[in-house]
């Protein structure tokens, strides 16, 4: 399979970036990132600098990889991350545009790499349940209904990749925040902190993310298919805590 790739190159946060054109021949079993690896090997052989992009586990769980592929965060194969895209998914395309996440709160570091420290800052604002090491009671003391626990798990699967922000016209991180709030606040262990949603949303705003206008683009691109229902759950909690 031969592809023409238009890849975003940018020296650093301040520099002007632009698309660079490359051609590559790969087999259909190659993953998207392995294609970029192969391209980078060629570039190094030609004395050129390799394209910088984030990756780590390459099994769809660490949340490092983050490419916008022809306009879609993580690419066309839904419900998974960039590293789990295979070139056979792109068999009917010849040209691909590869860009970084674009959002004020995710400044570009180099080429396709962005700074997502803002997500860590949001979690630090209250995305945890306070429990000092060693002070926990016996794990089976509080039974939790299976459906409640399963629903908490569904929200807890967020990998913090930031695709929701990249897809949102407002560059809002509301789905990221709502997933964490729903995970923690619907469990009996986490319901005590009634201000969690408010604290996280305030932090989100301070970090430069926009707010939610219900476009629902986030849900469409989430590699873990986290539902916007989490936003409804969070809004209910906000309403109850303000009563």
């Amino acid at each position, binding site marked *: 399979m031969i592809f023409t790739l238009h890849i975003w190159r940018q020296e650093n946060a301040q520099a002007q970036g632009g698309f660079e054109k490359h051609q590559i021949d790969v087999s259909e079993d190659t993953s998207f990132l392995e294609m970029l690896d192969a391209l980078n*090997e060629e570039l190094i052989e030609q004395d050129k600098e390799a394209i910088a992009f984030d990756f780590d586990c390459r099994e769809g769980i660490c949340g490092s990889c983050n490419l916008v592929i022809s306009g879609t965060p993580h690419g066309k194969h839904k419900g998974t991350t960039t590293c789990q895209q295979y070139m056979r998914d792109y068999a009917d395309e010849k040209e691909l545009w590869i860009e970084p996440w674009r959002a004020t709160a995710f400044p570009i570091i180099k080429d396709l790499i962005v*700074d997502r420290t803002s997500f860590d800052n949001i979690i630090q604002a209250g995305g945890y349940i306070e429990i000092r090491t060693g002070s926990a009671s016996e794990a089976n003391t509080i039974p939790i209904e299976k459906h409640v626990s399963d629903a908490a798990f569904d929200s807890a699967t967020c990998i913090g990749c930031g695709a929701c922000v990249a897809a949102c016209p407002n560059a809002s991180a509301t789905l990221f925040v709502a997933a964490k709030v729903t995970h923690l606040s619907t469990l009996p262990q986490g319901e005590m902190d009634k201000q969690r949603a408010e604290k996280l949303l305030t932090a989100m705003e301070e970090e430069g993310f926009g707010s939610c206008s219900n476009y629902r683009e986030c849900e469409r691109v989430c590699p873990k298919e986290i539902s916007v229902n989490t936003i409804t759950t969070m809004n209910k909690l906000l309403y109850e805590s303000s009563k």
Partner: protein
Amino acid sequence: MNDIELDSKIPKGSLEQRWTQHKFNLKIVSPANRKKYTVIVVGTGLAGASAAASLGEMGFNVKTFCFQDSPRRAHSIAAQGGINAAKNYQNDGDSVWRLFYDTIKGGDYRARESNVFRLAELSTSIIDQAVAQGVPFAREYSGYLANRSFGGAQVSRTFYARGQTGQQLLLGAYQAMSKQVAEGTVKHTSRCEMQDVILVDGKAKGIVSRDLVTGELETHMADCVVLCTGGYGNVFYLSTNAKGCNASAAWRAHKQGALFANPCFTQIHPTCIPQHGELQSKLTLMSESLRNDGRIWAPKNIEDCDKAPEEIAEQDRDYFLERMYPAFGNLVPRDVASRAVKLICDEGRGVGHAIDGKKLGVYLDFAKAVEIHGLDAISEKYGNLFDMYQHITNEDPYTSPMRIYPAVHYTMGGLWVDYNLMTSIDGLFAGGEANFSDHGANRLGASALMQGLADGYFVLPTTVSDYLARQSPMDLDKDYPEAEQTLKACEEKIERLMNAPDPQKTPDEFHRQLGQIIWHACGMAREKETLEQAIKDIQVLREQFWQQVKITGSDKTLNQTLERAGRIADFFELAELMCLDALTREESCGCHAREEHITDDGEAQRHDDDYSFVSAWQYSGNVTEPKLHKEELHFEFVRPTTRNYK
């Protein structure tokens, strides 16, 4: 090279009382004095994040570093199957003693009894802690916690969160650490890689780091240093590790004087997706939990290997694990299962793609499980794993059996530590996969998460406090010439990498070649002559690497090619030590299968009289001539026998 007297500091007395008594004997720092001490924690996976959170809560100043862009991305996140704990919620006869026994036996009697007992003892508190943090473990309809079975055990003691247990536990530890960052007791730096340990008067008092964005080298001083930097499976190039996993922190500590223990003990996990092509960058694990319901088989006849699995009649299928090990069947430990799969494929009965003319794969079949439990039940348990398999292979495991083959997954070897998890360098601690402490020659499934968290939440906070209580706080603002010297050495190493005399090949090209050598010589089967040849080949290739490695771009900016080259340079030295260790250990045990020491029916043949010890290697100033120290293992409570899973 200083002469080292190995003292494992193992407490005496009854096994149950050792940790309790030891804690009482340790010193503690009074709460008011804790803020006067600084602890550096390198690596923020399960062990590092939990240690940082706990030490921060106690009131120490903690500085943490990770090379990823956030602590939430450490490779602990990819652990799928679960975490063991001796809760005995199933009332099936489990106990701390049984978990202890299973772990010692699973490790083929090459781990310390005291450490393993402590691990089993702490296992239950980990589950309590995680549940309180909001880790959504699987539950029964009754609302109580669910368990599943795992290899090497006949009780059901594994707690799990679908196929994402590592993710949920890591997020718990990450969130606990985030709270401490907000409170100011933990200062974290991401995209920053440790380059070396700084020793002042022979004690670990800081690190040199490289800011991966600006390329700047910096020194950070502290009262002690904790390395939770993971394992070295990526020495093989293809492994189930994340691409960034590396041995550099541990290896550079080794070259500063920390002994490296049992480097040849590397776990090959039986159920991974087979390799499909040349360009492949990593292998993907399919959780061991699949062996609960999946049945492993290969065609009985070589002629059937090219047929589609559906076309092979039931009587022509060899469910070889069930045949060879009727008592444990598909749930034998990882090393036993891996060797059996290799045996079948070496006989020519493998299936799937051929790599170098050999079909390396066997079937993992769920047809029977679907028949018994129904599609929904199987999907509920393994849905995300099946999806992952389908993404990667483009084949549907619901309708046709998976293909699997063993792959490098975990390294039991690591920095030698005493009972306090302190290395042979005073003030340098190692936790999690980075140390060698608990798994002997083979790790049981669902025990890595348990060990990382036991070290981080419970052991390190206690033993690090004791260490600090014996020191006066360091003046961190003073200039230390040792820090400057170490930084200078790091600078020179980077300069040497950037300016190879005859740059020709990319770092990855060298890494792939190294991987092939070490997989062939020090993988699932090891043999004297192959190991000797591998050592020579590694030396030649390493020399070529330093002459010909080609790195483009600058070292003063973000440069992933340089990052990789630095890690590969260390893998080249570690690989040689692994082969030397494998060569020296003239026996088979756990993962270490020496072809010269296999019983007639194909099982590992231990030689307890001569090899019941931990190999602890000391750097001599010459990578090729390390000095071997032996820590004898004493079994007072368990009698080493031949492992029998039949």
